[in-house]
């Protein structure tokens, strides 16, 4: 079995360096640019010809380019960095040393102050791989003999921010596969969303503010993913939260929007209690009360120097933070509400980036969770269970939504559940990989839904959509690609990452599939159910939006709140038409990514036999991203992918699609054509059929009622009763609890204020006056304006006090 202590022999060494490629060392420029852009837009935005959008786009574009180059530099660094003689050097970067004395003199983010932060670097000659350490064995095996000398080495740059009470607060960057990946995702999607927004929110009354906050958000998110210490993570975490608040409440004139913003912020704050408690526990238990450094904390945990109790507390508390930020049951309710914000915001913040902050945080502090939750060798734990429940629960909810953005929102919750579950079962790479692929196809879907809504001025699929395929073919195709990717059909992105998660559960024993860190059979089955659900609800969504006939356009007034400003600018009320290039181009780009990104982590044994050279496409993502073998990562085991699992899970997804397809594209569509209306479901499908008289005939007509069983009872129940019950629970129990908690807090506040504060505490003060006032008047009476009254009170008070002190001191 895997053991913590197996790593002890090697992890006296910290596999973190400071010298590296210029771009890796200077990754802090990437968040800095949008931050500058924020300030510039804030002060000068309104005076510029494009109202500030140009600054934001330029800054994010440059950041994106830098992120790409940084990513490239990382790939190079990962493959070529060589350790020898106790220090590291980058054999390929020419200016790595030359820039040493030059950098950082003009800026506090890096520089000479880093010298004292230097981690000891010792040779890792690759021979320390224990026999039982599966992960390293795998890593070593797959990288081959030569690269054994190239362990995973992160790049860290730290400078002292300030110091208090003997504790140094650092600010710095930790560049490794995970952060590089996040840099790429965040900057790319942010750039696309910026471009998309110039059209989408064009003409909005707070256009400039919108871009300012987009910039601030991008900066905060990049700051967060680059942070090298947990304090910085908290800072970034809160900052993205406040940007989310500001952007959800972008149209704060309407109360529902500001309500949603408040709900988001306060729900997140609830989780932040966990974050604070967890991080503080880590700071003292693993950081020794002296350092916030992520790497040091992780190293301490990996080396087994931290008490298990502290880790359990920290992991559980941080799980609460994940539950709020990443929308896990039971704190997920804010996320669907957050759809009140503009759609580009939903795509960027509430689908691709901010909501995965929780997942990122778990991934970053993985040793804490791995040890604290005892992930290895177990078959259930808090994180994985929360993820699994979320995954299925939210998937069911997505069925009953009429609002296209809410379908996507629940879908996001569900997919985040996948990621949390993956982390919970020890499939680190799978989780991060799913985060990566999901960002693209979900942003694609959101932007696509925004494109549709832009055309029909509404988000209501049943009332205002239908048949959009005819009007918006390009949006349709991109949306289709996104849906297929989300549904997890090969070879699109979602398939690969979802499959890896299922593999990682270790619950599959057929055809040579192996266990990962434990036997998470329950989670495997939940994952399978989730796959079917995802496929089915996306099919429903596709049908309601793009097929049938357009149901809108008959003079209704309730426009989607999203688009009113945008619309008045356009001023058209005819048939919907395809969106402009600034909306479509981001969709194309994201569709492309949705198709392709799954290929970056092909499982071994696919397409290139057993050759595992760096040139192959197999497990590249794992190779570059997972810090396996580094000093700050636990010894996780990797499951071996199996064909059987891939086939079964695909079959399940197809089954989900098939059922939904049959219901909508066949049954409903047929009925629509019969009635000449564009229907959104079967009217009374259950009750209008099958009386006993024509049982046999009907049985045949209905194909032994299998359809009925599937669509009517199983799907109907699932889609109807169960989902509705789940939604009811969501709305009436969970949501209500949040509301009631809020109301109760207010009520408690009122009671405390009126009864205790004004009654007891204040009353005590008042009655002190009353006691001395023999006529027993109320407090106001002592304020009679008569000096003698005041004097009487004063003397009485003095006497009582003096008496009290005599009793205390003298007697």
């Amino acid at each position, binding site marked *: 079995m895997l053991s913590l202590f197996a790593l002890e022999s090697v992890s006296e060494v910290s596999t973190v360096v400071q010298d590296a490629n210029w771009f890796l060392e200077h990754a802090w420029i990437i968040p800095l640019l949008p931050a500058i852009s924020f300030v510039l837009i804030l002060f000068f935005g309104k005076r510029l010809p494009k109202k500030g959008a140009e600054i934001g786009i330029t800054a994010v574009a440059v950041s994106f380019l830098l992120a790409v180059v940084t990513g490239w530099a990382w790939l190079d660094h990962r493959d070529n960095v060589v350790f020898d003689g106790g220090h590291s050097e980058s054999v390929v970067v020419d200016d790595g040393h030359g820039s040493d004395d030059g950098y950082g003199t003009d800026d506090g983010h890096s520089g000479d102050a880093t010298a004292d932060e230097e981690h000891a670097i010792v040779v890792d000659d690759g021979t320390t791989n224990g026999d039982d350490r599966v992960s390293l064995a795998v890593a070593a095996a797959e990288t081959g003999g030569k690269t054994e000398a190239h362990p995973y080495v992160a790049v860290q740059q730290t400078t002292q921010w300030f110091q208090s009470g003997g504790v140094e607060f650092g600010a710095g960057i930790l560049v490794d596969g995970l952060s590089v990946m996040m840099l790429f995702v965040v900057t790319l999607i942010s750039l696309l969303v910026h471009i998309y927004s110039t059209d989408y929110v064009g003409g909005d009354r707070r256009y400039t503010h919108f871009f300012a906050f987009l910039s601030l958000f991008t900066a905060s998110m990049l700051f967060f993913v680059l942070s090298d210490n947990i304090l910085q993570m908290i800072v970034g975490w809160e900052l993205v939260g406040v940007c989310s608040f500001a952007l959800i409440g972008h149209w704060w004139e309407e109360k529902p929007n500001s309500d949603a913003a408040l709900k988001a912020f306060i729900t997140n704050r609830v989780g932040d209690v966990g974050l604070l408690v967890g991080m503080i526990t880590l700071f003292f238990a693993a950081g020794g009360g002296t350092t916030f450094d992520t790497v040091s904390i992780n190293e301490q945990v990996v080396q087994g120097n931290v008490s298990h109790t502290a880790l359990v507390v920290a992991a559980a508390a941080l799980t609460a933070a994940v539950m709020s930020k990443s929308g896990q049951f039971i704190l997920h309710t804010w996320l669907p509400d957050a759809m009140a914000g503009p759609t580009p915001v939903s795509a960027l913040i509430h689908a691709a980036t901010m909501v995965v902050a929780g997942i990122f945080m778990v991934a970053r502090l993985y040793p804490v969770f791995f040890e604290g939750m005892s992930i290895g060798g177990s078959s259930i734990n808090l994180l994985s269970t929360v993820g699994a429940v979320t995954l299925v629960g939210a998937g069911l909810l997505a069925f009953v939504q009429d609002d296209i953005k809410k379908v996507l929102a629940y879908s996001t919750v569900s997919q985040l559940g996948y990621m949390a579950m993956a982390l919970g079962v020890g499939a680190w790479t799978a989780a991060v990989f799913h985060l990566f692929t999901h960002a693209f196809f979900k942003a694609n879907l959101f932007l696509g839904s925004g494109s549709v809504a832009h055309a029909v001025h509404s988000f209501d699929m049943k009332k205002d959509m239908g048949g959009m395929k005819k009007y918006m073919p390009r949006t349709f195709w991109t949306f289709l690609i996104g849906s297929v990717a989300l549904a997890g059909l090969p070879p699109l992105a979602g398939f690969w990452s979802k499959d890896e998660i299922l593999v990682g559960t270790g619950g599959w024993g057929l055809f040579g599939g192996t266990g990962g860190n434990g036997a998470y059979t329950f989670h495997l089955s939940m994952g399978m159910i989730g796959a079917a659900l995802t496929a089915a609800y996306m099919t429903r969504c596709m049908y309601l939006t793009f097929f049938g006939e357009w149901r809108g356009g008959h003079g209704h007034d309730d426009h989607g709140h999203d688009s009113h400003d945008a619309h008045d600018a356009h001023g058209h009320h005819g048939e919907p038409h395809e969106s402009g290039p600034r909306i479509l181009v981001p969709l194309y780009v994201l569709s492309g990514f949705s198709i392709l990104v799954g290929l970056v982590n092909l499982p071994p044994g696919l397409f290139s036999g057993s050759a595992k050279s760096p040139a192959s496409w197999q497990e590249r993502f794992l190779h570059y991203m997972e810090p396996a073998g580094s000093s700050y990562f636990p010894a996780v085991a990797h499951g071996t992918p199996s064909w059987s699992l891939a086939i079964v899970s695909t079959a399940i997804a197809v089954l989900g699609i098939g059922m939904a397809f049959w219901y909508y594209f066949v049954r409903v569509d047929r009925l629509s054509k019969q009635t000449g209306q564009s229907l959104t479901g079967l009217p009374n499908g259950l009750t209008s059929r099958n009386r006993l008289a024509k049982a046999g005939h009907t049985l045949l007509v209905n194909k032994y009622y299998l359809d009925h069983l599937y669509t009517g009872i199983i799907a109907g129940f699932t889609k109807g009763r169960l989902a509705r019950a789940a939604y009811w629970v969501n709305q009436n129990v969970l949501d209500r609890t949040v509301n009631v908690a809020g109301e109760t807090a207010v009520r408690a506040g009122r009671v405390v204020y009126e009864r205790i504060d004004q009654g007891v505490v204040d009353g005590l003060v008042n009655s002190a006056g009353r006691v*001395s006032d*023999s*006529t027993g008047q109320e407090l106001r009476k002592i304020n009679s304006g008569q000096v003698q009254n005041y004097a*009487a009170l004063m*003397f*009485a008070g003095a006497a009582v006090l003096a*008496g009290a002190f005599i009793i205390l001191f003298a007697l």
Partner: protein
Amino acid sequence: MSSLLAAVSADADLMVAQNVFFALISLVMVIAAVRVVTTGNVVHAALWLVVVLAGVAVQFLFLGAEFVAVTQVLVYIGAVIVLFLFGVMLTKASMGDDESVVNERRGMAGMVGLLLFAVMAIALFDSFGDKRVVIDEPQSVNTVSDSIFSQYIVPFEAVSVLLLAALIGAIVLARKD
């Protein structure tokens, strides 16, 4: 009270007469003081006050502070009381008995007074249980004046300024215009 009695008995041989005299004066003073705050007639109150002030002067003599006693008689009984009487006349304050001279706060005020006295008494017994004052010889006016004009010159000047200010203030306030 036991400590006081013990102390008194121990002291009896020396100071019997003095103590008896002190007790008498004190009794008179307390009674007079009570009358000051209870009598309905303002002029009577002023006269009872004279009794108290005179008693205080006697107490000063007991303590050997002759100069203070003399000043007390001169300034208080000579000037302050006269001032009071003038005030009584100028404000046409009631000369006869008047039930309403005491307000409705009587009960509370009594309690406050008793409480204060109790607290002080306890504190005094606790702190100065059997400290004795030994008066060898009265303070001469010489010593008093010497220290006023050397050690305490600054407060003295301050008091003189204060008196001047009070003088001007009283004129400004009472001026008719």
